[in-house]
């Protein structure tokens, strides 16, 4: 009797165990992949990262002069530098909005970033997809412009990224820049034609390889696609190092983009790496969670 009672009391226990061990393979839990990148920036481009709801973020970005002048301006560090200050906030998950001010042309930008798809640990989405767009206002004195609308430029980018393994993440980001005004030239006596298109397509490739938990190598390449009649932009090749903590990311690199505003960079970059026109720059981001 006693033995029977013991067997009966054990029976449900065995059944419980077997269902508990069998259940997980039937329902694998999908989770978004975390930390594809450590910062919202990867050198001169945005990453797929959108901070979680309630995150306030600040950007401090610098681009110095070209390195090739050597000691005369201490490898560009004492040359005229370009600076951007930015502030962003995530009011809801997957969305962040921000503003920034760039020294070059005193450009104010308002930007929006929205995470359309997130790479999942298993199953459905092998990549993350994020939209980034901005509108920028050139705030130099009025005598530089004919119409108010000439101050405005726009930038739209679809960013596609994959965290390939714990150490390596890569992204590709096609973009469209628009400027409201271009310079003209006399194509024939008395007739002014535009020097360049108002819209410009480009594509950016970027990758991150982690050397240690908080240290990574960054690579970024930007290829202009649209061809203009004059003033074609040069591509950007940049190589850098990223040091990160949970709330900071510090990126230090050498590249060719000076303007900090993505549409200015993609449409007008005149620094050519084949001529050795490298410049040093850094991005610092700081996150606060509220």
């Amino acid at each position, binding site marked *: 009797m006693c033995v029977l009672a013991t067997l009966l009391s054990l029976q449900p226990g065995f059944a419980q165990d077997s269902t508990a061990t069998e259940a997980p393979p039937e329902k694998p839990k999908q989770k978004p992949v975390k930390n594809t990148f450590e910062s919202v920036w990867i050198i001169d481009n945005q990453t797929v990262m959108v901070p979680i709801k309630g995150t306030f973020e600040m950007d401090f970005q610098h681009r110095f002069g070209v390195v090739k002048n050597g000691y005369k*301006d201490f490898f560009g560090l004492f040359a005229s530098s370009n600076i951007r200050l930015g502030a962003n906030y995530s009011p*809801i998950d997957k*969305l962040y909005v921000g503003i920034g001010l760039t020294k070059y*042309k005193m450009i104010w930008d308002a930007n929006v970033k929205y995470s359309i798809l997130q790479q999942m640990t298993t199953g459905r989405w092998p990549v993350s997809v994020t939209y980034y767009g901005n*509108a920028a206002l050139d705030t130099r004195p009025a005598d530089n412009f004919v119409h108010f609308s000439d101050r405005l430029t726009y930038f739209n980018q679809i960013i596609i990224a994959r965290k390939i393994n714990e150490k390596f993440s890569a992204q590709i980001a096609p973009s469209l820049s628009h400027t*409201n005004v271009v310079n003209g030239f006399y194509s024939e006596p008395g007739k*002014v034609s*535009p020097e360049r298109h108002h819209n410009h397509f480009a594509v950016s490739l970027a990758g991150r390889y982690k050397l240690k938990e908080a240290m990574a190598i960054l690579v970024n390449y930007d290829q202009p696609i649209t061809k203009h009649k004059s003033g074609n932009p040069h591509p950007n090749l940049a190589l850098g190092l990223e040091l990160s903590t949970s709330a900071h990311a510090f990126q230090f690199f050498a590249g060719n983009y000076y303007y900090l505003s993505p549409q200015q960079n993609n449409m007008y970059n*005149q620094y050519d790496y084949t001529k050795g026109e490298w410049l040093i720059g850094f991005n610092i981001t700081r996150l606060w969670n509220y």
Partner: protein
Amino acid sequence: MTGKKYISVVGALVLIVVLAGCYQDVISPGSDPNGPPAFVSFSGDLIPIFNTNCNSSGCHDAVPSHAPSLVPDKAYNALISGGFVNTAVPDQSTIYVVCKTGQMPPTGALKTTDTQKILDWIRNGAPNN
């Protein structure tokens, strides 16, 4: 505020900016480079451009950290003797090329009419007038 409201507010802001938005304007350089160059005075037209954009922020000063000096007393000699002006092929002159491509000034490209004044001055033979 709910998520939907945020999206509609942000959407409305984006819409305002876009509607204020896209133009395809073209700015005339001011004078026709195929025609005869317009008259440009070095002291009357170009020096004011240098004063506004080049010689007052620690760059092309009297003792310049970056050559050439573009202060009124020194600008002409510094440009001519420093090889920044090419009267034989005016549109290849360094001073014109760096302004035209937007490399100088580093705080934002000159107005296209100002760049054209520099070119016309060189096409006139770069006189000290």
